[in-house]
């Protein structure tokens, strides 16, 4: 706050006319809170409303249009061809099931990996170790998504590190395919799952754990009966990330998934190669609907306040 003292000399150079205009503006704004609010809100609302909400609405509308198969031009004519195709076609059923299956698998793997390390961080490690671990988990969160997916491409490659490690034991890399994609996606979203579980565990009072073990409970049953019920909202908060991010992913699937088709890759190929935006829009409504159902289902648990 030392800069405040320099305010007086600032005003000397200004011409009286400009100063009084600025002053009048200042007085006007000071008296009219609503004008201040309008000035602050107009630009951001214009941007987010016009660019984003309008785009989402337009996406919904486009799903009801079609593409002329000869010219590739979009025909503005209301029909539900795309919707019935997406709902009725066996291909989309299979891909939707596969994608939801992958999302559930990824979520399960992440929760199983996240629970012990989060528990260790929150309840066992000393203050210093705890702080170091939080940073160690946070840093890769910010390392580029693409680079991490690329890293798994090299790990899963033929003669890659997995083959090298498990080759002598008779194992081999799963290669590029569904398993590779699930592993990579689990890796990508792991920090997103660890952090909310860690935060939830931090809030569990130590005295509860002590009371439980004083009453003779073993570590395992303390965890099952005391800790787990208390951190369910944190687990669900983490699962929202891994679940919804997996549903919408297509880059990692493209990089390590081989020929595996997921909802994301279908959307992308319809935007690019097939040039059928209306169909792509209709397909993209599937993950959107699933996520809203999921969010609606978990809203009652209070997990959304933990995000």
């Amino acid at each position, binding site marked *: *706050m030392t*800069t405040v003292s320099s*305010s007086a000399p600032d005003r000397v150079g200004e011409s009286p006319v400009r100063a009084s205009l600025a002053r009048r503006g200042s*007085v006007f704004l*000071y008296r009219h809170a609503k004008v201040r609010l309008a000035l602050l*809100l107009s*630009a*951001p*609302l214009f*941007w*987010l409303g016009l*660019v*984003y909400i309008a*785009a*989402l609405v*337009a*996406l919904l509308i486009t799903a009801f249009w079609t593409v002329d198969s000869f010219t590739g031009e*979009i025909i503005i004519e209301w029909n539900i061809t795309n919707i019935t195709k997406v709902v009725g076609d066996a291909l989309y059923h299979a891909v939707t099931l596969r994608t939801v299956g992958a999302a559930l698998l990824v979520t399960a793997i992440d929760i199983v*990996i996240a629970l*012990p*390390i989060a528990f*260790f*961080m929150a309840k*066992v490690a000393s203050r210093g170790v705890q702080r170091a*671990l939080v*940073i*160690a988990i946070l840093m890769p969160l*910010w*390392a*580029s998504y*693409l*680079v*991490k997916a*690329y*890293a798994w*491409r090299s790990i899963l*490659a033929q*003669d*890659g*590190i997995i083959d*090298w490690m498990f080759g002598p034991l008779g194992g081999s890399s799963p290669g590029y395919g569904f398993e590779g994609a699930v592993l990579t996606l689990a890796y990508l979203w*792991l*920090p997103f799952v660890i952090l909310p579980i860690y935060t939830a565990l931090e809030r569990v009072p130590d005295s509860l754990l*002590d009371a439980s*073990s004083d009453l003779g409970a073993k*570590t395992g049953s303390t965890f099952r009966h005391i800790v787990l019920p208390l951190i369910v909202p944190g687990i669900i908060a983490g699962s929202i990330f891994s679940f*919804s991010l997996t549903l*919408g*992913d*297509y*880059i990692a699937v493209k990089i390590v998934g081989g020929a595996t088709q997921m909802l*994301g890759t279908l*959307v*992308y190929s319809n*935007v690019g190669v097939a040039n059928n*935006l209306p169909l792509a829009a209709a397909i*993209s409504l599937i*993950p*959107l609907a699933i*996520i809203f159902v999921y969010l609606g289902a978990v809203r009652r648990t209070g997990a959304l306040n933990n995000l």
Partner: protein
Amino acid sequence: MRLSMTSKIGLWVTTALTLAFIYVPILVVVLNSFSTSRTLSWPPPGFTTEWWGKALTNAGALSAISTSLIVAAASTVIALLLGTALSFALHRFSFFGKSTVNLLVVLPIALPGIVTGIALNNAFRTMLDMQLGWFTIIVAHATFCVVTVFNNVFARLRRVGTSLEEASSDLGAGIWTTFRLVTFPQIRSALFAGGLLSFALSFDEIIVTTFTAGSGVQTLPIFILDNMFRPNQAPIVAVVAVVMILIAIVPIYIAQRLTTTDNR
């Protein structure tokens, strides 16, 4: 909590294994960028700095880096303006629809990237009949960068309160003077941290970018993606990937330091 020796050791071991799981892939990329092998074979048959030299003189890679820097800088400037205005509006006023506005800010990163990407692609191409290019990428990036600036500035405003500003206007300072000499110095480091995070977010982004970039503009992530599937480009991609980690991690690290020292 009292733990038996076995469970304690078990936890230590699982934690160490999890950390290894997190860091080994990144290490593999770094080592591969020095490998003499042109494929992704492991272990590297030998080490060389040849690829670093080649990558750092590769015209495609260099122009992709400068494209990414320009896009990230432009969208950060827009995000700073919009995010700051929004955080002041939501912190200082209560109005009808406030929680909706709050949701609106988070939506671009809460929804899957592919939905945001295709929605913007569709809006630009079908609805507005625009060519994809610089403008569309920057608009798309700014849209999801607003939330990082908003989060930082809003948290700061909540912490510093309004008493200093009230004191300033009681002493006769107008709105501009108060902002310049009282409010701005208080939120300066939050703006900087939010700006850095938004810069890193934009620099890394790939999903929305592939839908809004068109064929003319190549950002660094798109360069990596394009070259990843080409044979024999593996070492150069590894080098660029390491560069990308560095460019993203450094601002994040500075931003983290800024916010933690402020909170003390």
